[in-house]
């Protein structure tokens, strides 16, 4: 399986209200990330837009329907379609989530939590290996935000994710907001989570806003909060170079606002590099 070279860039998720900026202007980003499923279509405007954007920017494919944690196996038709779009646009990499979305009969269209058991570990490792074999490349797996854990959990999420990485050779997309949200919801220390991961496998970092509350919800509908910026600084002093981006999926503001937010990430990354050099 091919090695994925680190890429230290700053990007945004490509969302419909901003298409015209990316098509008609020069947007100051190093890459864009697209939701794979939105472009796994037969033809028409979505593919025309993606082709045009790819002509100007590096693209990462980020999926939500691989369902690698599904005990019913991976959907090979889905994988074939994903492979087709990957061959068309040659993304820098393909990512999905440490989760499951469907049973044998039905699809929840949500990133559902896994029990962190040895059985689930075997299932997800087998599915990731199959996916990587079909796609002929290693995947990046993203840590999810979650709202519940299971009584039968045998290990912590970071231990589970680290073991998936070790067994399958996949890389990590570290969503700093998801660590922050899950730490709040399940009462663990976010830095303990980060420290428990094989940080040399992190190739991409997601940043997003969430709705605070007794149970915090990963809504992607507001700016990144101070606690997540602090955690990003902690992460970036420990990882190697990584591609950092802002995810906004609801209440999408003008592009300029997201670029301002991305500038904060650039500044934090520059400071982290200086700190690493000084150390």
């Amino acid at each position: 399986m091919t090695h994925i070279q680190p890429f230290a860039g700053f990007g945004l998720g490509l969302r419909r209200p901003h298409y015209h900026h990316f098509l008609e202007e020069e947007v100051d980003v190093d890459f864009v990330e697209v939701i794979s499923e939105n472009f796994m279509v037969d033809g028409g405007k979505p593919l025309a837009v993606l082709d045009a954007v790819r002509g100007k920017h590096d693209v990462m494919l980020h999926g939500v329907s691989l369902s690698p944690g599904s005990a019913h196996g991976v959907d090979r038709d889905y994988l074939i379609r994903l492979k087709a779009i990957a061959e068309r646009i040659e993304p820098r990499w393909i990512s999905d989530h440490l989760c499951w979305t469907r049973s044998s009969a039905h699809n929840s269209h949500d990133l559902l939590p896994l029990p962190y058991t040895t059985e689930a570990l075997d299932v997800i490792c087998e599915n990731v290996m199959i996916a990587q074999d079909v796609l002929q490349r290693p995947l990046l797996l993203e840590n999810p935000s979650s709202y519940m854990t299971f009584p039968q959990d045998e290990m912590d999420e970071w231990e589970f994710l680290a073991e998936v990485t070790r067994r399958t050779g996949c890389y990590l997309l570290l969503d700093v907001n998801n660590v922050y949200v899950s730490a709040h919801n399940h009462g663990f220390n976010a830095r303990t989570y980060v420290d428990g991961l094989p940080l040399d496998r992190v190739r991409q970092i997601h940043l997003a806003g969430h709705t605070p509350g007794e149970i915090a919800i990963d809504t992607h509908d507001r700016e990144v909060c101070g606690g997540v910026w602090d955690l990003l600084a902690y992460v970036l002093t420990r990882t190697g170079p990584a591609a950092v981006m802002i995810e906004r999926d609801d209440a999408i503001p003008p592009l300029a606002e997201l670029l301002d937010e991305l500038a904060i990430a650039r500044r934090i990354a520059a400071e982290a590099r200086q700190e690493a050099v000084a150390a």
Partner: protein
Amino acid sequence: MTLARQQSRFIAGLMSDDAPLPEDWQARERAGYEIYRSAYRARLIEALRETYPRTARLAGEDAFHAAAAHHLISHPPRSWTLDDAGQGFAQTLEALFPDDPDVAELAWIEWAMQAAFTARDAVPFDGTAMVAATAAFDDRAWQDLRLAFMPGLAVRRVRHNASALWNRLGEDAGDEDIALARSLPALPEMRGCVIWREGLKATFTTVNAAEAQALTAMKAGTGYGAACDMLTDLLGEEQALRMAGEMLARWLAHGWIENILSQIPVDTAQGTVRKGCNLTVRNSLPG
């Protein structure tokens, strides 16, 4: 309990409040699970609203919400793409709103427009290519002519003014527009609604019911001769002869035809050849 069984139960619980939750779940697990349960419903109903915005305005928000919830129970999503969650919704609405067939008709249009929007890219067959391809056709070859239509092209008969409904119920529709759309009377006679993609834009037009029937039949693989017979049965020979050529010319002009599927070798020794269709077509073809 195996992971497979656990996941099946987890999803069953998202879809039904009555599904039992594991006994070893305490208040904390149940509170977290409720978030997944409400997110599942909200996300899917929102997906239907995004696919069917005009239908939602026509039916009214409460009625649409109830219909969408009903549809998700009777047709829980199976596909990996959220876009498919609205599959079959027009049929659900047909059953739920038997006295308001315009609701289901509009839903069918919105669904077909979405399908056309992302259909496979193809280059339409133009009039010049058609003239060249059929230059040597005799009556038998015209009879046997079959057509491949552009990906995403869809047709059905409608009882309501599709254009008026569509235009009244756009994104900027106010209460008055919606009220006017709801009060539109049924058409004096059935029409056909045809949906296709022009370049990157999905669009639709209406045709008379006989043409819709011929188009439906040819889309299903019927030959041109049999489609002409159908027109003759519906309209009488004189009108059918005129329409057969006009309709083929219109299909070409709109870019509905992707290719000629088959040109069966001419064998004049077999069967009876119907007269007329070929000349009418030749006189009507563009280019």
